[in-house]
């Protein structure tokens, strides 16, 4: 009996491939933008024109007025980076595991509950540890941190139960 609709197993590896390098690039760039320290240069350097495109801002403020669908030129590399992180973390979180059944569904729901608690606790802690520009990056991280924390907790729970199988027939 499926409670959650899940993606095929292969998406788990695809999610890892998308998430891990993008996360490190994001981390390095956060340090670059805040401190000026470069690690091989900024990947998300907004001076690059390749990703600069004309887009439409759904809601914008112009001279104290609200403007809808305002045409602007924007470097989209940050947006693509965030989209890759979100999609990758969702694939990682919602892909089937080997032998998916009602027990793993229960572990999945328990992991979601734990991830919500941990994610909220981390946000509460970071609220008092990061200020000014760095807090902006904390908020960006919060967009995908829930899925990542859930994936880690779920993987640990599954590993714990699979380890116990070696002691049984």
């Amino acid at each position, binding site marked *: 009996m499926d409670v959650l609709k899940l993606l095929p197993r292969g998406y788990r590896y695809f999610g890892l491939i998308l998430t891990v390098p993008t996360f490190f690039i994001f981390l390095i760039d956060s340090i670059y933008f805040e401190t000026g320290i470069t690690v091989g240069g900024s990947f998300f350097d907004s001076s690059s024109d390749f990703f600069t495109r004309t887009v439409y801002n759904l809601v914008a403020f112009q001279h104290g007025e609200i403007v809808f669908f305002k045409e602007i030129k924007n470097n989209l590399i940050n947006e693509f980076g965030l989209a890759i992180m979100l999609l990758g973390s969702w694939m990682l979180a919602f892909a089937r595991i080997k032998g998916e059944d009602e027990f793993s569904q229960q572990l999945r729901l328990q992991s979601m509950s734990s991830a919500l608690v941990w994610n909220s606790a981390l946000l509460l802690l970071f609220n008092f540890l990061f200020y000014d520009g760095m807090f902006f990056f904390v908020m960006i991280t919060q967009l995908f941190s829930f899925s990542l924390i859930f994936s880690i907790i779920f993987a640990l729970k599954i590993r714990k139960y699979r380890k116990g*199988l070696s002691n049984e027939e």
Partner: protein
Amino acid sequence: MKNSIKVERAKKNYTQAQLSELAKVSRQTINAIELGKYVPSALLALRLAKIFETPVEEIFWLDENE
């Protein structure tokens, strides 16, 4: 909740792997049920009762304090 899955399994001479295949669940699910770490759904409980040819109340019963 307590259960006698291990006893019933021994009567039929099934391994956990064989029982898990018959019940259409993973081996870790059967293991978790036997250890009392997981309470199966009604569907799975009825499936197990059918496999063991035993009433479900004889396989699963409540603790005294439940």
